[in-house]
C-alpha cells in the first residue's frame, strides 16, 4: 500500500497512470474485505451508494446532425418527465420547458443552425449561487437539481440562469406526475439529466435515447470524467464550444458546430 501511495503522490499523472492507479485501488479495495469497496464504479451504482464526484455527467450536442423541424428530444423529455408539451398547454408563455429546440440564423450569411437548449449543468452554477434557501444545488456527479422540499418558488434562479433553462410550475398538476418524477405547483424545475434513469443505471437520458432512435445521433450523454467513455473520446476529437463561455461556468453540455 505504501508503494501505491507514493506512486499516486507523483504529479503530473498521465491518463495511463491514472487508469493504472484506479485499477490498483479497485484491486486493493476488493482485497480489504468482501463487500467493502473503496473504489466505486460509476455506472450501475448500487441503490445504497450516494452519487460519486468521480463521475461528471455531461452531454455533447452535435448541431451538424441536429435536424430542422425535428423535436423528438423535446417530446421524449416531456413523456419521460411528465411535463405538458408547450403546444398543448393552456398558457404556452408560462408553460414549463425542460428542453427546447432553437433555430438560429446568422444575419450575414443566413446560415441556419439547429440546437436543443437545456440546463447546461454548470460546474459553477449561478442558480445555486443565488438560491436563498439552498434548494438549488449541484449533486456530487455534476447534475444541477432543485430540491422541491425547500424551494419556495422565488424564481431568483430563473433570473440568474444565462440559458433561460428553468421554469416555474404555475398550475396545479392534479396528480398527473410520474411516480419517478415528482413536480409541483410553485416550484422551479429544469432538466435533471433524467436523474431517475441515471440512478437506475441506464447511463443515458430520454432525449439522447430518442435522438439515437430517430437516427440523428446528435445527442451523446456520458461521463466526462471517464477518459474511456464515448463522450470523452468525442470531446477529444471534435472542436466544441460552451455557450457563453465568457462566463467561465464550465458547462456540462458542449456544442459542436456553433
Amino acid at each position: 500500500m505504501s508503494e501505491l501511495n507514493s506512486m499516486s503522490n507523483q504529479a503530473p499523472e498521465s491518463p495511463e497512470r491514472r487508469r493504472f492507479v484506479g485499477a490498483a485501488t479497485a484491486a486493493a479495495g476488493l482485497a480489504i474485505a468482501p463487500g467493502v469497496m473503496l473504489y466505486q464504479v460509476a455506472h450501475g451504482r448500487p441503490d445504497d451508494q450516494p452519487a460519486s464526484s468521480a463521475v461528471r455527467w455531461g452531454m455533447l450536442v452535435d448541431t451538424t446532425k441536429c435536424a430542422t423541424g425535428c423535436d423528438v428530444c423535446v417530446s421524449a423529455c416531456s413523456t419521460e418527465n411528465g411535463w405538458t408539451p408547450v403546444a398543448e398547454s393552456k398558457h404556452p408563455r408560462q408553460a414549463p420547458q425542460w428542453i427546447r429546440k432553437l433555430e438560429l440564423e446568422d444575419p450575414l450569411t443566413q446560415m441556419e443552425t439547429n440546437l436543443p437548449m437545456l440546463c447546461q449543468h454548470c460546474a459553477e452554477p449561478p442558480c445555486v449561487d443565488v438560491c436563498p434557501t439552498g434548494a438549488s444545488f449541484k449533486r456530487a456527479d455534476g447534475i444541477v437539481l432543485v430540491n422541491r422540499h425547500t424551494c419556495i418558488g422565488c424564481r431568483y434562479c430563473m433570473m440568474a440562469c444565462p440559458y433561460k433553462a428553468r421554469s416555474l410550475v404555475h398550475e396545479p398538476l392534479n396528480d398527473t406526475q410520474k411516480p419517478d418524477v415528482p413536480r409541483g405547483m410553485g416550484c422551479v424545475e429544469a432538466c435533471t439529466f433524467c436523474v431517475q434513469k441515471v440512478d437506475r443505471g441506464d447511463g443515458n437520458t430520454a432525449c439522447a435515447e430518442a435522438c439515437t432512435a430517430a437516427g440523428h445521433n446528435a445527442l451523446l450523454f456520458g461521463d466526462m470524467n471517464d477518459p474511456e467513455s464515448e463522450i470523452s473520446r468525442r470531446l477529444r476529437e471534435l472542436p466544441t464550444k460552451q455557450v457563453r463561455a465568457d462566463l467561465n461556468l464550465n458547462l456540462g453540455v458542449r456544442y459542436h458546430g456553433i
Partner: protein
Amino acid sequence: MAGKIKSLLALGAVVLTTVALAWAGADAPAQASGAPKPVITKAVKGDQCVEDTDFMRRNHMKLLNHQRDKTVIEGIRTKKHSLKECIECHASEKTGSVAAAKDDFCVSCHSYAAVKIDCFECHSTKPQGPMSMHPLNAETAHYKHKLAARTTSEVSAEEMAGVAQ
C-alpha cells in the same frame, strides 16, 4: 285456531323487531360521540410492513423525511423507506391510489388525525402503471393468489367504513 297462531306469530315478530331496534338504538349514542374511525385497508402486497405496524404509525414521517433528503441530495435510492414503495403496496385496489378517495390508505388516517399531507402536492399518489399491471415480480409472486381471491369477493369502501364504525 290457525288465525290465532298467525296473529301470535305476527305479535312475536313485532316484539322481536322492537327489541332489536331498541338494542341498536342503545348503541347509537356511543357511535355518535366520536369521530368515525379511519378505515385501514390492508396492503395489497405483502403480509408485513418494512417495520412493525406500531412503529410505522408513530414514525413513518421521520423515516420518509430522512429518506427524501438522502434521495434528493445524495442520490441514495434504497427501497426500504421510500415513498414510492409505500405507494406500491398501499395503493387502494379501487382507486389505484393512496390519496384519491377519503378511504384511501394515507388520507383515511390523516383526515381522522386532521394532519395535512404535503407529499402529494408533488408526488404521484399512484404506483407505476395501472393496478391491473401491478408488478408481480419474483419477489411478490406468492401473493398472486391473494390478489385473485380479493378480486372475487370485493368489499366496498362503504362496507368497510360500516365495519370500522
